[in-house]
Structure formats: C-alpha cells, structure tokens
C-alpha cells in the first residue's frame, strides 16, 4: 500500500511536526523574552507566550514560504536564472522584453495578456449576466429552490477539475460533437433559429478575427485616442444627468483618483521600459510619485491620514524637484518626456486633496511646480513634434494621418503612443477639477456640456480615423504581400456569409477557442450567483413596496432598485472575474491544442509554460511579479471603491 515515496513523505511530515513543535516553543520563548524586555507584567508575558505558541505555525510558514520566496523571486526576476545553470544579473531585461513584447517569448506574454483582457471585457460581463440571471430566478419562493441552487452551483465544484472539462472537450468536437449536431439539427428545423445561428457564427468569427488582428502587434494608429476619449465621455455624461450634489462631487473626485492611479501605473511601466539606462532614475522617481500619490489618498484615522498625506506630499515634491533638475538623457527623450507628463497627471489628485484639507498656499506652490514642469519639459516636445495639432484636427473633423499612402510613414513616423493620447486625460482631469471647484451652477453646466461635445467629437472622429488608418495600412501591406495586418483575419472570416454546412470550430480554430472557454465559464458561474443571491436577500422589501405604490412596473423596479442596491456585489464580481481572467489555468490546459495554444492561454498558463516547462526561472519570476502587481492593484481597488459603488 505505502510505497517508497509515500513513506518518505510520511517521515518528512513527522519531521515537520517536530520542527514546528520545537520552532513554536522557540518563537514563544523569544516573544516572552521580548515582552520581559518591554517590562510587561508576568501575566501579560504569559499571554504573549501562549499567543505566539499557537500562532507560530503560521509565522514560521510565513517566513519560510512567503517572505523568503518573495524576496528570492524579486532577486531572480533581475537575473537570467535557469535551473542548474549559473545566475547572471541582467537588470530589468526580463521586464523590458516582457512589456515591450521583444522576441518570441515577449510576444507570447503580450498575447497571453491580451487574451486575459479579452476574457475580462467579453467574458466577465457574460459571466456576470449568467450569474445574475441565475440568482434572479433562484430568488423566488417556489418549492425546491434549495435543490435548484444545489444544481446551479454544482458546476463550480466540477469545473475546478479536469474531468468535466474533458467532457466539454468531447461535446464540443467540430464534426459529430453533440453541441454542433444539436445546433445543426435545430437550424435545419427552424428557419428563424437558422438565421440566428449563422448570424452568431458570423459575429463570433468576425469579432475574433478583428481582435486577433488588433493584437498582432501592429500599430494601433489613431485608435489610441479613442479609449481615453471614450472613458472621458462616459465619466462626463454620468455627471451631466440629474442633480449636482455631493455624490456627483464624489464621483468626480474618485474618477480623478482612478485616472491618477492608471497613469501612475503606466508611468512605472514606462520607467521599466527606459532604454538604455538600467533602473533609471526616472523610474525610481516615478515609483516615488506613485507611492506619494497612494499614501496621500490613504484613508483611515483622521490624524494618521493627515500624517501620511504630508509624507506623500514630501515624496512628491522631492520627486518633482529631482525631475526638474535632471537633464534629459541622450536618446531617451521621448520616453522621459512621457514620464514627466505622467508625473504631472499623477500628481493632480493630490492637488485636489490639498484644496479640501490643507492650506491653500501649498496648492499655489504645487501648481507652480506643475506648470513649470509642463512648460519646460512637456509642452515643447508635444508642440514641436506635431502631436498637439491632432486634437485640433479632430475638432475640425479632419484626419490626423497626413500621408495615408506611405507605409513607412504609417509604420514608423506616425506612431501614436499612449502618451500622445494622455493629453485627453489631462483635459479630463482639468475639466473635472474645474467642475468640482466652481461655485456657479450655470458655469458648471456649460463646462460639462462643452466637455461632452468635445470628447464626443474626439471619440467619433478618432474611431473613424482609426478605421481609415487601418484600411490604408492594410491596403499597402496587402499589396506588398504581407499577411499579418489588422484586418487580415477579419476579412477572411467575413468574406463569406456562413452557409448551412458551416458550424462553429469550437476547439480547433483560434477564432473559436476563446468563446469556448467563455461558454464553460458561463456554465460554471455559480460562485458569482451565490454572491448575488446574498445581495438580493439584503435588499429591503419596503423599497419595492414603496415603488409599487408609486406605480413602478417590474422592469423599472429592477433597474431603479435592485440593480443599484446590489451594485457592491456586482463590483465585487467584476473584480473577482478580472482576477480570474488572469489566473485561469485548468480550463486552458485541458482545452488547448498546439494550434490554439497562443490564442487561448491566460497569463497564469503562460507563467506555467515558461517557468515549469521551459525552466526559465528568471523570466518566470518577472512574470509572476507583474501578475502580482496587477492583481494586488485590482484587489486594492476593490477594497477602496466597494463602499462607494452603491450611491443612493
């Protein structure tokens, strides 16, 4: 029964118990000695002794398995360590190649991140829709609800293991698989379903072809401007509707904070990419500024928060001054100016905190510093290199691309980096600040309407211009015989309308493998369902009764009462879903094949492949740190903003 390895493990387990036992007593004795050193009473000393005695299994494990490994991994991430080989210090090379998508491995990492993004923006909403629907039909008083809840939740238990995923794999076979046969039979029987079915195939293949084309590493062109403009448009629109009050002020404040956080993150990433200086000064300052920002918005005990704020303010000012007095290094002009712009953005939320809490004179000093930086460092670059007139062109409905027939121009000269578009964030933050600070309601309303028009125009025009750019780029690339351009897969997928014989190639085609994974995730969305159920039970029925008296119908009650009341659960599920999109592993491992691997893999799967199949510890550590930073940022966001989502 028990063979060699099992006996060995039993022996080790016994050894571990003895080790923990002795270690615990040791830790407890040390703790008591320290307590004696602090002159605690003998009774207190005894309490400390027992407390540490019980807690020390965790303390010892924490040191051995968390603190030590984390530090080691931080060190490895700066080396080219491979198991069994020498360790060489390579500085930020691992991070740089990962973020810049250099080489095959860097490109694959970027693909994995884009796949995770796909799961986050397409998969998570669908999962939440499934979970919420399940919760709503379970939140009734019909008989047998407990049994149904059991059935609805069961897939969560099963989807964690490989067995049911293999069953899905079998059911999703292209030809003769159950799912396709059923769908095909239904399509033959009902012409309406047939239309829907073919429309679905067309839509999925077109969208995934488009997504693959976009994430192939081709320049994004004017589309870079679309996303910030879109975000800004949404934020401003949400402020225009309804009365202006403290809650709106709070939304604007949080929006500024979040943008600062986002741009601060971009800034650190830009610092990581800095060439050719290793661990550049700008990187360190950008970290300082980000830390200053984070500390400054720290919440908690009032006086302590103020202390932290001053600390953050100090960090920021030192970072500012250091940035101001540093000459721009040769050859890194573009990137450096990028950081400076970002520093300016990242610091704006602090300005606002200051206006509310601290002496106004600090604001003046601070604003002067900021204006100085923008004037000295950012403005010349932006104005001289023809970046600033992009917005001007968009406002007059022109294209920003001046030579649409020149591939060189499209590929190398016209590169819209995210920093060009960061101007939009700057304008957004300025608008929000103005709106918050102004006392005149009329002025505020005009500002908001003006900003809406502005961002709306930029949004629409950049989308149109983006498509124009892609078309021009693809036209030339195709003429030159390239196959790796934006719309290549999209054109191929949408050139023919699917006929009766076509069916989804669920797991064998890279256009379909991501939707397959999302389908299985929707099937196992029961965990989110339980969270929604708990939230639904917490909605006071008096609200519904009052609404019913006022004549609200069921749809109105859902959108006006239920949805706002369960928004914390919604937000929680979104964040958990985004983290899950990065961490999903089992499903990818079972569903992939050699052709579809790069288009289904998640970040966690890529980490597994790179570290444990290819034994590249150095790069694996860098990946795991990048992942950890993203996940911790998401979690922090969850903690900070969850109390704010639900506003009455």
């Amino acid at each position, binding site marked *: 029964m028990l063979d060699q390895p099992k006996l*060995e493990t039993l022996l080790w387990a016994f050894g571990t*118990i003895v080790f*923990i036992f002795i270690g615990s007593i040791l830790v407890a004795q040390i703790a008591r000695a320290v307590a004696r050193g602090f002159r605690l009473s003998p009774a207190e000393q005894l309490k400390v002794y027992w*407390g540490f005695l019980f807690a020390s299994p965790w303390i010892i494990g924490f040191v051995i398995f968390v603190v030590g490994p984390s530090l080691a991994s931080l060190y490895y991430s700066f080396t080219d360590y491979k198991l069994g080989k020498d360790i060489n210090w390579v500085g930020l090379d691992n991070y740089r190649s990962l973020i810049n998508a250099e080489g095959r491995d860097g490109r694959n990492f970027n693909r994995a991140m884009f796949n995770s993004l796909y799961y986050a923006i397409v998969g998570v909403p669908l999962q939440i829709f499934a979970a919420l629907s399940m919760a709503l039909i379970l939140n009734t008083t019909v008989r047998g609800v407990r049994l149904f809840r059991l059935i609805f939740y069961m897939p969560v238990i099963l989807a964690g293991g490989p067995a*049911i995923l293999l069953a899905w794999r079998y059911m999703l076979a292209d030809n003769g698989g159950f799912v396709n046969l059923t769908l095909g039979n239904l399509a033959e029987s009902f012409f309406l379903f047939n239309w829907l079915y073919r429309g679905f195939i067309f839509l999925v293949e077109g969208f995934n072809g488009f997504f693959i084309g976009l994430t192939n590493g081709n320049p994004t062109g004017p589309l870079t401007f679309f996303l910030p403009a879109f975000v800004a448009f949404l934020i401003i629109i949400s402020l225009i509707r309804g009365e202006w009050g403290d809650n709106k002020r709070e939304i604007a404040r949080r929006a500024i904070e979040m943008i600062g956080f986002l741009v601060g993150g971009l800034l650190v990433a830009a610092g990581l990419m800095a060439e050719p200086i290793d661990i550049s000064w700008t990187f360190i300052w950008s970290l300082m500024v980000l830390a200053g920002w984070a500390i400054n918005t720290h919440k908690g005990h009032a006086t302590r928060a103020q202390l932290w704020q001053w600390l953050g303010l100090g960090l920021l000012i030192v970072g500012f001054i250091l940035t101001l007095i540093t000459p721009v290094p040769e050859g890194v002009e573009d990137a450096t100016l990028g950081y400076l712009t970002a520093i300016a953005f990242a610091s704006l939320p602090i300005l606002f905190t200051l206006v509310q809490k601290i002496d106004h004179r600090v604001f003046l000093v601070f604003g002067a510093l900021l204006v100085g930086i923008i004037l000295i460092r950012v403005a010349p670059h932006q104005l001289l290199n023809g970046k600033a007139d992009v917005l001007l062109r968009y406002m007059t409905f022109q294209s920003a691309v001046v030579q649409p027939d020149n591939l060189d121009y499209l590929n190398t000269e016209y590169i819209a980096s995210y920093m060009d578009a960061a101007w939009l964030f700057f304008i957004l933050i300025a608008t929000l600040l103005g709106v918050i600070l102004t006392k005149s309601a009329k002025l505020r309303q005009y500002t908001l309407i003006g900003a809406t028009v502005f961002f709306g125009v930029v949004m629409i025009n950049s989308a149109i211009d983006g498509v124009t750019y892609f078309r021009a780029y693809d036209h030339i690339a195709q003429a030159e015989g390239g196959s790796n351009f934006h719309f290549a897969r999209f054109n191929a997928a949408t050139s023919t309308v699917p006929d009766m014989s076509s069916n989804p190639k669920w797991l064998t085609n890279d256009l379909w493998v991501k939707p397959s994974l999302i389908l299985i995730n929707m099937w196992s969305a029961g965990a989110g369902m339980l969270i929604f159920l708990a939230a639904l039970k917490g909605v006071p029925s008096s609200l519904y009764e009052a609404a019913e008296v006022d004549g609200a119908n069921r749809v109105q009650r859902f959108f006006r009462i239920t949805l706002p009341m369960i928004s914390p659960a919604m937000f929680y599920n979104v964040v958990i879903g985004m983290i899950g999109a990065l961490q999903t592993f*089992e499903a990818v491992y079972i569903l992939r094949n050699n052709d579809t691997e790069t288009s289904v893999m998640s970040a966690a799967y890529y980490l597994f492949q790179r570290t444990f199949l290819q034994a590249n510890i150095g790069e694996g550590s860098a990946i795991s740190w990048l992942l950890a930073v993203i996940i911790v940022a998401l979690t922090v966001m969850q903690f900070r903003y969850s109390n704010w989502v639900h506003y009455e």
Partner: protein
Amino acid sequence: MSTATSVHVTESNEAIPVNNPRFGIFKRSYSMAGFGKFMIYVALISASAFFLFPLVWMTGTSLKTVEEVGQRQLNLFPEVAQWGNYTKMLNDPAFQLAYGNSVFVVIIVLLGTVTSICLVVYAFSRLEWRGRNIVFTMMMATLMLPAQATLVPQYVLFHQLRWVPGFNPIAIPGFFAGGAALVFLLRQFMATLPKDLDEAAMIDGANPLQIWWYVIMPLSRPAVATITVFLFVGQWNNLFMPLIYLKDASLTTMPVYVAGKYNLQESPIPWQNIMTASVLFVIPVMIVFILTQRYFTEGIALTGTKG
C-alpha cells in the same frame, strides 16, 4: 394555469411566514400569477438541464463501446450499458496507483492544514496577546497576494531541497496553516463563541491548550467541517501542483492521470475510457458536495471566495 398550479401557490403561501420581510415582495408578485410561477419553473428546469448535461453526458459516454463513441454523438445513453468499462478501469494498475496517490495526498494535506489552521485561529480569535493585531494584519495582507507571486521561488526552494519530484512540496506546506481565506473563515466563526467559556475553564485550572481541545474545538465543528470540505474539493481537483511537482509516473494523482489519458494521442480517442476515469474521479467530490452543500453556500456567503 391549471388548478394544480394554483394549489401549489396557496400551499407555498402558507409555508412562508407572513411577517418575514424577505418574502414580502415575492408573496405579492408571484403568488397571484400562476403563469409567472410556471415560467419560473420552466426557467429553473431548463437551466438545470444545461448545468447537469455535461455530467449526464460524461456518465452516458463512460458506458458506451468504442464504436458508439466514434459515431456522431446523438445518443445520450448506449444501447447496452458497458459496465465492463468500469471493471476494466478499476483493475488497471495505473488507475489504482493514481487513485491511491490522490487519496494519500488529500489525507496528508487535510490533516496537516486543518490541525494547524485550528491552532492558529485559536490564537487569533480567543487569546488576547500583545502583537496579535500586527500578526493578524500581516496574515490578512497575504490574502491579497496571489499564489503566482510565490510559486516560482517555492519551486526553486523545493528543487534545492531535492523534493522534486515527490509528494513533499504539496503535502508539507499545509502544516504551516496555509490559506489565509480559510483562516479568515474559521476566525469569523470562532470569534462568535461566548467568552465566558474560556474564562470558566481557566478558573477550573485549564491551560490554553486544554481549553482549545476540550472547549473550543468541539464547539467549532461546523466551521471546521466547512474548511475541510473546501480544502478537500480544492485538493482533489488540483491539477496545477501535481503537474509541476509529481512529474514521475509513480507519483501521478488522479487529475493528471485523467488529463494524461487524453494526451496519449491515441486514435480514435478512447473517450469511453477517459469518461470512465472521469466519472470515478468525480464521484467522491459529488458525494462530498451533496452531503455538505450547506457548508459551501454558507462559506461562500461568508468569505466570497470559492476556496
């Protein structure tokens, strides 16, 4: 709808306490409309069919012959159930080895983790000592740290200890109360037990170790059961850790065995065998889940994690 439905309606109305605020709205909106109730049943049952289908399909396939598996998949169940698939699988030495390994790993992990978590949580929830809040805050901070952060260096550590390949990397860390989410769950429960219990036992001359074993542990059984169930399901399903640590054929656990059966590249793919192994793999989890589903739903409502 029919009278039968309306009878149900009145019955369920009586079953619900009228003064329970939770049901107020639904009593009004659903009890009056039999059709609405009918639609809800339709939705519930069709959704259940969707959720149960892969499981049923798996069971059906496991009873088919090779020829039936190769055909177009229209029949849910085979013409003649091939129970021989199961006897063959149960007598397969590789299967027996993998099953035994899985059971072994799960037992060791459960024993180590549950015991150490109970000890640690006792210190965090019942004892009062200087430094407790600092240590507990540190533990809660590890909740935010994703598993990926320490995965790589732990692998290096175990590699240097010459534990790879072997069960140790999976079995041993459990003894150090890993899993902050479970600690949090148990603490939430233990902290609600009345303080008088400890004080009474203390006056009787019991030391904290005795209080832990004789007073607190017996009262904490439901919560301990909850974390045990979570741990069991997580460990039984775990594919990732065995993939990296149990690379030797003699160490294979069930998840890797089942996944590996597909990767053999046989043609035609022996789906009936894969599904037989899958059914045998899923059975313990299903039994545990059905028997303890109350713990699952409560545990998730409490911590919001899925273990």
